[in-house]
């Protein structure tokens, strides 16, 4: 899991830092699109709330031991079978009670953040890279390549996401974190590819691209220096909003028993086993569900804020 963790931390910061980083770019104008966006974001309460939540969630994913000393896998059936939450014991092992196996629910929701966020961030990173690449090539070169890539995109776009993920995942015997990430990314890149293609087609007609071409810049330089940075804005908006969706997709698939599986600690897995206890001990189901809701909400709010900032026309 160390690799997964590393990937998480690196990637996790990506969507956030992206709006921040470009202002550093030596753009001649006083206020680029990016710095303008950052200026707006800092004043947006929606962004601030979601950013705080996301920072806490990322901290949980990276260093869960900071939040609890309890072991999420330690089960004490005799003492803790479905023990009720102790709401006044803040941050204690028994704060949220225990599940049917006698495991601390508080420890499990803290440790569960890692799987959910790793999946969400991993999938988002992969779909962004793959989608942008496909979209950029199709949009810039056009012609036959565009036709082929766009038709491939259409084919993948036509596959219902959850159904497709179910089909892909059931063909794996052992479903580890990376299998889930790859399966979701395998099906999820189409939207980004379409957005990126549209954006690239617009930008390649811009004066500075034409000028660069006239000055004899190589294709790779044009793509990387001129097209890519300017086509990224809509891609980032779509990716940030989709990120929340991947968290719920992971929870959905784990709930159906075809996503992550024990011994991986994941909210979806816990929701799945918790729903059987609904009548006797609803908290076993409700607590991880609330965590999923909060996380999805935080990422969707972030996506909204970023979209507003990057697309002033919406205001």
């Amino acid at each position, binding site marked *: 899991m160390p690799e997964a963790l590393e990937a998480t931390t690196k990637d996790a910061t990506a969507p956030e830092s992206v709006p921040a980083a470009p202002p550093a770019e030596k753009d001649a104008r006083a206020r680029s699109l990016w710095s303008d966006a950052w200026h707006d974001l800092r004043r947006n309460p929606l962004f601030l709330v979601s950013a705080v939540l996301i920072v806490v969630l990322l901290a949980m994913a990276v260093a869960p031991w900071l939040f609890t000393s309890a072991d999420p*896998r330690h*089960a004490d*059936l005799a003492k803790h*079978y479905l023990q009720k939450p102790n709401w006044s014991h803040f941050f204690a092992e028994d704060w949220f009670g225990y599940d049917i196996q006698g495991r601390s629910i508080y420890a499990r929701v803290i440790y569960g953040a890692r799987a959910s966020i790793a999946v969400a961030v991993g999938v988002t990173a992969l779909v962004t890279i793959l989608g942008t690449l496909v979209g950029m090539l199709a949009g810039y070169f056009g012609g036959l390549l565009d036709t082929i890539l766009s038709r491939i995109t259409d084919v993948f776009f036509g596959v219902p996401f959850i159904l497709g993920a179910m089909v892909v995942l059931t063909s794996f015997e052992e479903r580890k974190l990376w299998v889930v990430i790859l399966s979701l990314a395998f099906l999820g890149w189409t939207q980004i590819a379409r957005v990126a293609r549209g954006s690239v087609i617009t930008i390649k007609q811009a004066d500075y691209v034409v000028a660069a071409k006239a000055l004899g810049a190589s294709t790779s330089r044009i793509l990387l220096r001129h097209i890519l940075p300017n086509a990224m804005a809509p891609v980032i908006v779509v990716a940030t909003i989709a990120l929340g969706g991947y968290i719920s997709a992971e929870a959905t698939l784990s709930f159906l028993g075809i996503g992550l599986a024990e011994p991986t600690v994941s909210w979806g897995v816990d929701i799945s086993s918790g729903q059987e*206890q609904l009548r006797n001990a609803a908290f076993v189901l409700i607590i991880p569900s609330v965590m999923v809701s909060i996380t999805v909400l935080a990422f969707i709010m972030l996506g909204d804020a970023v979209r507003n900032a990057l697309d002033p026309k919406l205001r």
Partner: protein
Amino acid sequence: MRGATHAKWAAGAAAVALVATACGGGAGSGGADGILSSSWGDPQNPIEPANTNEVQGGKVLDMIFRGLKRYDPKTGEAKDMVAERIETTDSRNFTITLKPGWTFSNGEPVTAKSFTDAWNYGAHVGNKQANAPFFSDIVGYDDVHPASGNPRAKTMRGLVVKNDRTFTVALKDTFSSWPETLGYQAFVPLPRVFFTDHDAWLNKPIGNGPYTVESYAKGSGMKLRRWDGYKGDDKAKNGGVDLTVYTDNNTAYTDLMAGNLDLVDDVPAQQLKNVRNDLGDRYVNQPALIIQTLVFPMYRPEWSKPGMEKVRRGLSMAINRKEITQQIFQRTRTPTKDWTSPALGRDGGYEDMCGDACAYNPAQAKKLIQEGGGLPGGKLTLTSNVDTGSHRAWMDAVCNSVNNALGRGAVCTVNPVGTFADFRNQQTAFRLTGPFRSGWQADYPLIQNFLEPLYYTGGSSNYGKFSDKRFDALVDKANRETDRAAAVKDFQAAERILAAQMPAIPLWYQNGSAGWSDRLSDVTLNQFSVPVYDQIKVS
């Protein structure tokens, strides 16, 4: 078979309605014509009598067939059914006379030939029937079912039809309790159409029992209706039974509570706390001839090599049976002390054979596992179907118990298989690489039934492929004994070998449980924990 064995794999019972057809059990007409709906699991195989050795298919066979004998639903005693008398002078050559007047539901009379044809079909190697070993005591079995090579005959010499109502059976060896094995479903008669139009028969099986099959949709359910022409005295007291396939017993229970289902014969562990409140008197929980075990794949060298018996014993000691049965199962299971069932009674051979090996002792467990060379690959994966019997919950608990005892993180994980049929297929194909669940539901209260089919070399349900010459010799000796007490002693001696070798970890004795709607009355479970459908009244 040496011996008789009937046995079925206890699935528990079943659960997610693919469709809740048959809401509230059919047409709503009550009285003697009322139809009840009941939870079911998809059978592994098509419903051929000699190819069904699991409980879900067995449930149907018990409704649509009657054999020479039938086990009394209350006492388990083998009573004559289609047989008028079974006579022998030497416990080796039997003359069987049928009662007159029995017919199949298509009108064809049940004759001696109906039996011999069915048995020859079941025994023949070419028909690949899972229960073929049940016929292996009959003279000529080796000709139709050689251990290797092609069969030398089509029928067994030991079966001779004398006239329409009489046939004789010659056994290879004396076997005094052989007639008692004839209540098993592998021994039922078959109509001509089974052989002449096999596919049609499979789509809509025809038998001689109190019910007929109205329709069967694989994976979804089966509708059975009372057959008014039934010749036995245990005529159905209701109009029929709609069996509905569920893939989650929680869903079945919820459907029962919602009034969409009349009978659930597997109350999920999660609901055991509520069941008295929910159902009051419409709930039964009684001891049954069922034991749950974890079988080791002895066909895998990493599990069977010398030294591993220590690891197997160690694992058994790492399982806190008491805690799991108390909490997860709310005391509806009892921790095991042997490989049989307390329902056999002390005289029947139930005795604490497992001793220390079945007592929770994490320190000793850890030590034994280390001495034996550790777990293969340092890992342990438990496999079971999870659509019935709340198997997921206890497998997780067993894994936690093992992980806690070994204290090395998550070495034990579970491999949940979605459906019973799929799990059975993996098991019967010997594809499993780690310990897997085996729920054994006996067919009559004899210790032989708990040992021979499961652990005898080549036994009909020996899915771990355990093989031990001393065990086999003791079972053979026991089967030759004419004195019952002496036979029990021999079987117990064989059981001691299991205790030393631990080819299967006994977990707990399972009770039969069932809950039903207020439309039903006279719901009982037989000794094998299957509802006695024909006695249920619908109001």
